[in-house]
């Protein structure tokens, strides 16, 4: 055994040993550093670049929807938005509570935001902000802007949001946009595959993107959406963009295209106001061009409330409202046309040759057929009626007789020629075809043969017959145009609506003149059912029209005996609908209108004045004048939106 050294001497020896070991450790660390920072530096440099340069989807700005004269109906508006970033929130509930001190935050909203935060966290996308309030008022924005600085994870910024400056006026025409739901994504992504599908889905999920849910917003989705761009950005570990890199212009987002509708939004406004809170619909069509100039369904909902998600409570209120504001009456409401249909029956009878205009029928107030009695609306009867007078006085007995002579098939055929039983899309959703009954339909639907008695009801626009206000307006326009072909348009400049055909089934001008004369009689000859509403109030021009009353339910024999026809005696929802179709000026038709006032009872009393005022407004404002988009479409000159009002007729 070696001689033991003293611990003191041994200490120095061991110190050398330890320092040698320390030196070895130091050398190892330096060697590792050189391996990483010299030998493999390029590799890690590349990994670092891959790490943080990312292509981020930049959403396109949605195209605007403008009216005939370039007034915005749906536009992108900059508004203050407050959002929270889940990754930066320590206590989401406390933060929202704090926010609630400065802005209005209902309980339901808080719940939804907390759910969204949870979802983002689950999707490992905590850096994606969750919108708390999409549109702040100016005061809220100013207040929050100052406060948010000290609130962890809260962002207050300006953001683009869809806005409908005309509110309810165009709810049923334009529909609305909303965040894409899972169903929307499935529906819209159909037919796309691979990377294109992925991009498209990412776009739809983008918090700034809204998709059309209903109406023209949905129909013209592809036209309005635009194409997303790609931005090269430096992102941090959580995927949050930190720095913009130089952008390739070819990768910029392409904004969506603007869309023009043929409607004159001022005429639309006047028409809605004219309903004075009653429910109903009105459609104005330009006789010469087929442009729809007004498309009213009232009451309506405010599409702005749907853009950022409507609360369940608010939606339930709309849904359960007895006035049915969600119901698109103008093109989706099916009503029996009542006496407004009599021109069609008269046309059918003349085409069939079963009656001459001079032929008369005696009206004693009722009509006996088989073993049943059909009543005329006038209890005492009209006396002897030719076609002109029958239209003017709206004599039911005359039309029972000629309908019976003409037969159901011929009336149905002529109905189709006028466009009844046909769905008009015109760039909207929710349109309905109504129903033109015939024996084949009855056999199919009910498994019963056609009873000839039903033909009589058909003859006065009642029974199974169902029409929409839009169809009635188109019928009126064709009569006013003396049977000339008519192509209905609602989209002035936008995607085509290929399903909508031109109404060009031949109509004999001579027969149309007879109908026009009858309609002129209604409004402009003493004794006409709408004589009081015949003057447009413009110091000369008159209108020509036809009143109608559509039964909501059958009148029982007992009520008929007691003379109860409606009014205060029965509940509102059981009262008859009032209808009126008209065109003006009578001598040189430019505009055709159809009006229905729900439960308005008498066509001549409630619907005719509304129709008259709408036509007068259209004439006064020259609603049919050259639209703004005509220039834009024809000459490719920049912006002519500036002076739509000064256009000559």
């Amino acid at each position, binding site marked *: 055994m070696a001689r*033991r050294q*003293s*611990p*003191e001497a*041994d*200490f*120095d020896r*061991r*110190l050398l040993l*330890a*320092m040698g070991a*320390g*030196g070895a*450790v*130091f050398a*190892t*660390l*330096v060697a*590792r*550093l*050189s391996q*990483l*920072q*010299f030998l*493999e*530096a390029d*590799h*890690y*440099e590349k*990994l*670092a670049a891959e*790490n*943080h340069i990312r292509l981020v989807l930049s959403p396109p700005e949605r195209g605007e929807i403008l009216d005939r004269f370039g007034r915005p109906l749906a536009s992108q508006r900059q508004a203050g938005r407050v959002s929270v970033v889940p990754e*930066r929130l320590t206590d989401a509930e406390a933060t929202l509570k704090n926010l609630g001190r400065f802005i209005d935050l209902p309980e339901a909203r808080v719940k939804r935001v907390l759910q969204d935060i949870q979802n983002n966290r689950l999707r490992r996308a905590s850096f994606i902000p969750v919108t708390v309030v999409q549109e702040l008022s100016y005061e809220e924005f100013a207040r929050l802007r100052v406060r948010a*600085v000290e609130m*962890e994870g809260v962002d207050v910024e300006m953001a683009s949001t869809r806005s409908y400056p005309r509110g309810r006026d165009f709810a049923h025409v334009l529909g609305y946009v909303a965040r894409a739901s899972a169903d929307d994504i499935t529906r819209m992504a159909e037919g796309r595959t691979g990377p294109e599908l992925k991009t498209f889905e990412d776009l739809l999920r983008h918090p700034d993107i809204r998709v059309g849910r209903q109406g023209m917003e949905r129909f013209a989705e592809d036209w309005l959406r635009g194409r997303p761009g790609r931005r090269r950005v*430096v*992102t*941090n*570990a*959580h995927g949050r963009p*930190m*720095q913009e890199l130089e952008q390739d212009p070819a990768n910029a987002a392409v904004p969506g295209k603007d869309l023009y509708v043929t409607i004159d939004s001022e005429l639309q406004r006047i028409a809605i106001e004219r309903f004075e809170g009653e429910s109903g619909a009105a459609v104005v069509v330009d006789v010469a061009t087929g442009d729809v100039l007004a498309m009213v369904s009232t009451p309506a909902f405010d599409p702005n409330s749907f853009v950022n998600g409507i609360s369940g409570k608010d939606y339930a209120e709309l849904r359960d409202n007895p006035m049915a504001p969600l119901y698109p009456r103008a093109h989706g409401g099916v009503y029996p046309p009542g006496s407004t249909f009599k021109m069609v029956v008269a046309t059918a009878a003349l085409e069939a040759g079963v009656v001459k205009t001079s032929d008369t029928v005696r009206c004693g107030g009722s009509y006996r057929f088989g073993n049943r009695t059909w009543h005329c609306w006038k209890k005492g009867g009209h006396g002897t009626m030719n076609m002109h007078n029958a239209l003017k006085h709206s004599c039911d007995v005359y039309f029972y007789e000629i309908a019976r002579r003409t037969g159901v098939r011929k009336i149905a055929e002529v109905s189709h020629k006028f466009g009844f039983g046909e769905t008009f899309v015109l760039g909207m959703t929710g349109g309905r075809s109504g129903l033109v009954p015939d024996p084949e339909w009855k056999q199919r639907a009910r498994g019963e043969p056609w009873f000839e008695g039903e033909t009589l009801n058909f003859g006065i626009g009642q029974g199974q017959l169902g029409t929409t206000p839009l169809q009635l307006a188109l019928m009126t326009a064709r009569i006013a145009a003396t049977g000339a072909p008519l192509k209905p348009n609602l989209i002035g400049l936008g995607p085509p609506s290929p399903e909508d055909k031109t109404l060009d089934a031949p109509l004999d001008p001579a027969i149309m003149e007879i109908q026009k004369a009858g309609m002129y009689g209604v409004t402009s000859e003493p004794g006409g059912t709408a004589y009081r509403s015949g003057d447009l109030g413009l110091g000369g021009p008159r209108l020509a029209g036809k009143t109608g009353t559509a039964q909501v339910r059958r009148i029982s024999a007992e009520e008929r005996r007691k003379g109860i026809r409606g009014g205060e005696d029965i509940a509102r929802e059981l009262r008859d609908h009032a209808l009126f179709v008209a065109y003006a000026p009578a001598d040189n038709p430019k505009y055709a209108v159809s009006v229905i006032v729900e439960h308005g009872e008498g066509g001549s009393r409630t619907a005719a004045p509304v129709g008259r005022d709408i036509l007068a407004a259209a004439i006064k404002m020259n609603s049919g004048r050259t639209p703004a988009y005509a220039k834009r479409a024809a000459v490719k000159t920049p912006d002519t939106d500036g002076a739509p009002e000064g256009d000559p007729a």
Partner: protein
Amino acid sequence: MSRDGYTGFTRGEARTSTARALQFANFGPLGKVARLPWSIILLIVGVGLTGAAMLFSVGWDPVAQAPSPEEAGLWRDHLSRLAVGFVLMITLALLPLGIWARLAWPAYATVIVLLVLVDFFGVMGGGAARWLKIGPIILQPSEPAKLAVTMALASYYQRAMPTGGQSPPLWVHGGALIIMLIPAALVFKQPNLSTALALAASGAMIIFFAGIAMRYVAGAMVLGLAMIPVIYTFVLEPYQRERVDTLIAGITGEATNGLGESYQIEQAKIAIGAGGLSGRGYLQGIQSQQEYVPEQHTDFILTIIAEEFGFLGAVGLLAVFAFLFAWSFMVAAKNRSWFGRLATIGATSTIAFFAIFNSGMVLGLLPVLGMPLPLISYGGTALITVMACFGLILSAHLHQDEKLSARGLF
């Protein structure tokens, strides 16, 4: 004692005579302050200030080109802790070794009591009970334990070391082992593996320098190596095992999924590697600025140094540490008392253990354990402990000729 061939003085004598010539040495504490090794202290503070600068970089928001509001506090906290630590270090440095030695056992006893209390009344945090809450004061007894165990072992050997140039018998080392193992076991149980390892490592170094026969050292090493597979299989928790697997995969270059346990080390390697020779420049470390490396303000702060100042910066920092440790070892060698020598060894080993383990872990050579980089990582208690350890080393330097008797020690 090597005497200078030119003056004929040992270094200590030369310093004393110089100070005397300057009429300082006799002025009590003020003279002592003058005799402190200010260049070394400057180096220590310099490393601490580097830490503050790097924390400022961690808290930099590259988008706003301003300190981000959430992380702006990091470097300020560090600076104020550094100031507190500095005062503590200088104060401790001025304490004569006799006082240190007399405080050793009371400190050790207090720490043991506190560690036992933590076991019963400890506040849970991060899945472990490490803190004691006494009124408003929050104590983490495992931190003072590092210093207390060092002092206790040094004091123990001061008394147990036989006079007359003989090595202590084996049972003396056995006693030292027990003194070290009791607190180490208590800390391990919390669980706080990194501190337990630090305690064991510095204890082992003291026993080694106290002169335990080399055959036992060799035996312990062999035993330790043999235990590795056993510990891996039976002692480690699954998450710890995963860390070891990740480590081995990282060293052998095996592909990992870059997620979970391997994500942090993978991102750290990218940051370091992307730094290259001279780095991307201060505040320019993309990988670091974009929050790719988790725990960058604490355990992984070396990555931002390596990314922004490159190989030169990282090696420079390691070299400064190496120099400080070598200087401390020399302090130990020059001290006349066993207490002074071994206490310096223990304090140096504690700091060096963290520095080495932290760098090894960040560079992917050692498994990921919660080990701060001394003086640089964000964290108050660790910084104070390190400064206190330096205080002890400086005291040993200042009082290298102080003769300690066994009186008052037990």
